[in-house]
């Protein structure tokens, strides 16, 4: 490109003028900065005179007391107790290692803690205190105090730490707190200064983490005069922080404790819900763990033990675990069929032991078949063929819609970690997540709660409560915040006809109270307490044709992790439902054998608000139940308020 050299010169001249102009502006700005510096550092020097002469005012944050957590009766679940710790200021200690050696001859120091302290020392400036030992007993702390002159730089300090007196009972609900980590900070936008306090505890999982906003409170502050080495000379004034909000849960700690003991060492989950207002009275996942271990920082060995356990004690099976609901889903299929007029309550389906669907045989659990089956019988005896038949006539989308109405496939908003949504498959869902078309066989599988269908024990409990009341009962875990009652979960009436609901409830009644019902052995005897329920046994494996030919293998002969899940859902009293219970025993075998007795015991405990009378049980079982009650009574360790974990 040809350019006129004169134009170019003119442009360059203009640029030079403007560059000089900008340069001038920049110089002026720099002059302004210098003037400001002079103002702050020279003219205002008098104001900082006192500070400059080695005595400065420093603001120290005071950690707020964390909100406490209670059960519905005011029993304490999470509290703060004073904890003593030993800190050292490396700068004041001089030879830190010598001081540590002297200290360890007085009190036992954990090598893991010491290692952590040494790393911390390398990272932070030498005038900041480093924690050497945490949660020290009173005896040890007094030894340190007495020997203070021989231990330069060492200070016994008192702070608050979280304690969970109920040990494992609430581990999955409450979760636990732990010291703020760099990882926690990196996730936050604009972290509050209070989080910079060494070893400040925040909620890590569960309720503690989900309601961190209200539990934490607001930091207080004190103004202290400090000298050049950072040593506090005197305190000028202090403003106490605002402690976090106290929370009351809907859970009944006594019941929770019973349920946890009743589940024992099984890998299982149980949920008790109040049918009237949706209050979760108990929500237990088994096996559990002691959350106090995590507050201090769990040892590698303890942690490995928890993570390597086949029964997954760290996972919260009640809301996080999802299982094929198996036959407990049949009420939903039945309602969908009834509501859509596909089948009448008296209409029967012929069950020869299997149904041919699209060229494939779908078996009933009873090979010989149930003969003519109506709705009531289908629930009572859990006939599969009946449901294959009515489900195919109803269509999967309507069944899933009904399941959603009853709280399946819906993520219930509870302040707990990792609340699962479960799956209620539809045609659209399958094509979008698998890219495949829905098959008629999928409908058959779904109708008996197998195949893609997944639900959490919490969802099953909500489903039972909604079946019992006909209202969209919503689970509630948080009863009140600082005494302010939270909205109840009673819910609106569901758009399902009372007639259909009554038929289904009648079927569930037969399951527990008809001599031929699948849960007859786990019935409740007194008329005014009678229970309605449904058993479920969900497969976790496919039965191959070869296996079927060789005769189905009994559950007991399979390795644990391939056995069926046992489920039971129920509500009681039948006439005026008060509680709904769902129990899932992972790989427990049949629902009637492994889950129903647990659910019945839990239900009775809830109904009688304590140990039920033996008369509530069938006569034949009473001596066995009596032994069991005594055993549980022994195993349920009584934990007085404020008791400490073994590690504390």
């Amino acid at each position: 490109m040809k350019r006129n050299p004169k134009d170019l010169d003119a442009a360059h001249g203009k640029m030079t003028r403007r560059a000089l102009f900008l340069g001038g502006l920049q110089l002026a700005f720099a002059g302004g900065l210098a003037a400001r510096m002079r103002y702050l550092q020279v003219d205002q020097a008098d104001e900082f005179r006192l500070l400059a002469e080695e005595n400065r005012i420093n603001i120290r944050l005071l950690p707020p007391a964390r909100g406490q957590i209670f059960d519905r009766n005011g029993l304490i679940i999470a509290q703060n107790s004073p904890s003593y710790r030993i800190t050292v200021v490396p700068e004041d200690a001089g030879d830190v290692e010598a001081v540590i050696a002297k200290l360890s001859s007085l009190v036992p120091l954990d090598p893991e803690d010491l290692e952590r302290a040494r790393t911390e020392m390398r990272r932070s400036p030498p005038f900041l205190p480093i924690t050497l030992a945490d949660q020290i007993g009173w005896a040890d702390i007094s030894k340190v105090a007495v020997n203070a002159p021989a231990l330069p730089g060492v200070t016994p300090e008192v702070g608050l730490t979280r304690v969970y007196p109920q040990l494992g009972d609430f581990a999955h609900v409450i979760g636990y707190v732990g010291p703020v980590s760099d990882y926690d900070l990196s996730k936050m936008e604009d972290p509050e200064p209070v989080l910079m306090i060494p070893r400040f505890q925040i909620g890590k999982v569960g309720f503690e983490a989900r309601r961190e906003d209200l539990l934490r409170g607001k930091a207080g502050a004190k103004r202290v005069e400090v000298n050049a080495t950072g040593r506090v000379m005197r305190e000028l004034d202090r403003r106490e922080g605002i402690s976090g909000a106290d929370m009351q849960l809907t859970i009944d700690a006594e019941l929770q404790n019973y349920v946890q003991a009743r589940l024992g060492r099984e890998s299982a989950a149980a949920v008790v819900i109040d049918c009237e207002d949706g209050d979760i009275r108990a929500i237990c996942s088994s096996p559990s763990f002691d959350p106090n271990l995590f507050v201090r920082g769990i040892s590698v060995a303890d942690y490995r033990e928890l993570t390597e356990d086949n029964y997954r004690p760290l996972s919260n099976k009640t809301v996080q675990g999802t299982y094929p609901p198996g036959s407990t889903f049949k009420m939903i299929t039945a309602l969908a069929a009834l509501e859509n007029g596909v089948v009448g309550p008296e209409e029967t389906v012929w069950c020869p032991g299997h149904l041919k669907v699209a060229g494939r045989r779908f078996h009933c659990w009873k090979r010989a078949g149930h003969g003519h089956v109506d709705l009531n019988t289908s629930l009572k005896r859990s006939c599969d063929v009946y449901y294959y038949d009515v489900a195919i006539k109803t269509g999967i989308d309507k069944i899933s819609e009904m399941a959603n109405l009853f709280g399946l496939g819906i993520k219930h908003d509870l302040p707990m970690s990792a609340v699962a949504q479960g799956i209620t498959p539809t045609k659209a869902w399958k094509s979008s997540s698998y890219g495949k078309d829905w098959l008629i066989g999928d409908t058959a599988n779904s109708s008996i709660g197998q195949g893609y269908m997944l639900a959490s024990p919490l969802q099953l409990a909500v489903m039972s409560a909604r079946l019992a009341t006909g209202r969209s009962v919503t689970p509630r875990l948080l009863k009140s915040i600082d005494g302010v009652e939270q909205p109840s979960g009673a819910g609106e009436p569901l758009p399902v006809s009372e007639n259909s609901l009554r038929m289904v409830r009648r079927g569930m009644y037969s399951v527990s109270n008809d001599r031929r019902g699948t849960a007859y052995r786990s019935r409740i005897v007194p008329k005014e307490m009678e229970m309605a329920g449904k058993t479920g046994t969900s497969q976790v494996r496919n039965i191959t044709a070869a296996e079927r030919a060789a005769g189905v293998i009994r559950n007991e002969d399979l390795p644990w992790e391939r056995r069926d899940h046992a489920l039971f859902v129920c509500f009681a009293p039948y006439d005026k439902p008060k509680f709904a219970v769902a129990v899932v025993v992972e790989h427990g075998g049949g629902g009637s054998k492994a889950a129903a007795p647990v659910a019945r015991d839990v239900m009775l405990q809830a109904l009688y608000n304590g140990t039920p009378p033996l008369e509530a049980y069938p006569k034949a079982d009473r001596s066995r139940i009596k032994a069991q009650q005594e055993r549980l009574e022994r195993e349920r360790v009584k934990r007085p308020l404020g008791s400490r974990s073994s590690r504390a």
Partner: protein
Amino acid sequence: MSYLEYHAKSTPTGLRKVLHLNWGLTLLLITVSSVGFLMLYSVAGGSFSPWVEPQVKRFALGLGVMFVVAMIPIWFWRNISVLAYLGSLALLVAVELFGTVGMGAQRWIDIGFMRLQPSEVTKIALVMLLAAYYDWLPAEKTSRPLWVLLPVALILIPTALVLKQPDLGTSILLMAAGGGVMFLAGVHSAYFVAVIAAGAGLVSAVFQSRGTEWQLLKDYQFRRIDTFLDPSQDPLGAGYHITQSKIALGSGGWSGRGFMQGTQSRLNFLPEKHTDFIFTTLAEEFGFIGGVTLLSIYMLIIVFCIASAIAAKDRFSSLVIMGIAITFFLFFAVNMSMVMGLAPVVGVPLPMVSYGGSAMLVLLGAFGIVQSAHIHRPRQASR
């Protein structure tokens, strides 16, 4: 033609180029970085870890980059400026998609040995592109509306992407540096008057938007502005940084407390003492004298750049040097204003001193371009 004459009017070649480097500028850059090492050493409580060591390594790497960039003829850099700009846009989009979130903003891409902050690259790429644009554009078209609109769009695209991260500090820097280059290129002053007036209007709109549904800034950004205007209203929360920073600065006095003797800036809870707030440590330990010395070194660098820009006879060289100088100036001017309580805390590091890899590496690369322009400037033929 004699041997001497030949050399006087042609640019140097091969290793001879090293002799023609702008050694004054190089020395100033080394000095500023050394001040940084010193302060990082002090902030770490007299230790090379965790900050000094990586910082020195990055500086060495940066110097290497600067020399390599300087050796490559300036017209090469002009020719790739469009590519550089598009590349930096791609990186900004990539950080949006795969970036790591740090302190609430999506700013980094992890490339193994270091974290790359694409917005740093963008600052230089934008300046290069604008310089190349005005080098190409005939001078008489400079002020025509359509030819003004195009560079404005070129500035606003990366600004919008950076603002989305969100990084308010860098987006302001981008706009100011881009505007600076346009001003130097000779765009009519009326445009700038108009933009400044509109800017004032926008600022009032931002404040009007507070609390409404179309709120233009994040809550924490409003809080920072509030506390900038009145730090005493929240001395423990968001005003904490500014209050602590001013106390540290003020307690430095005339000549400071002496090296490693500053306690104020290390004792408090300032979480960014080694990055954005490192100037407080310097001002506390070396006082007014130390602060003004650093400021003077910075200004000397600017003066060197302006001189170099005026000496360079081709338009691209002049504009790119000035653009880089403006960017550099904005860095330290904004950072110092923020530390001294003259501007809200927006998260701009002190160039070449604050701990951090991307900014230093990119700045040294940019100075490599300044050097390249210096080496490859057209020489006057002797008559």
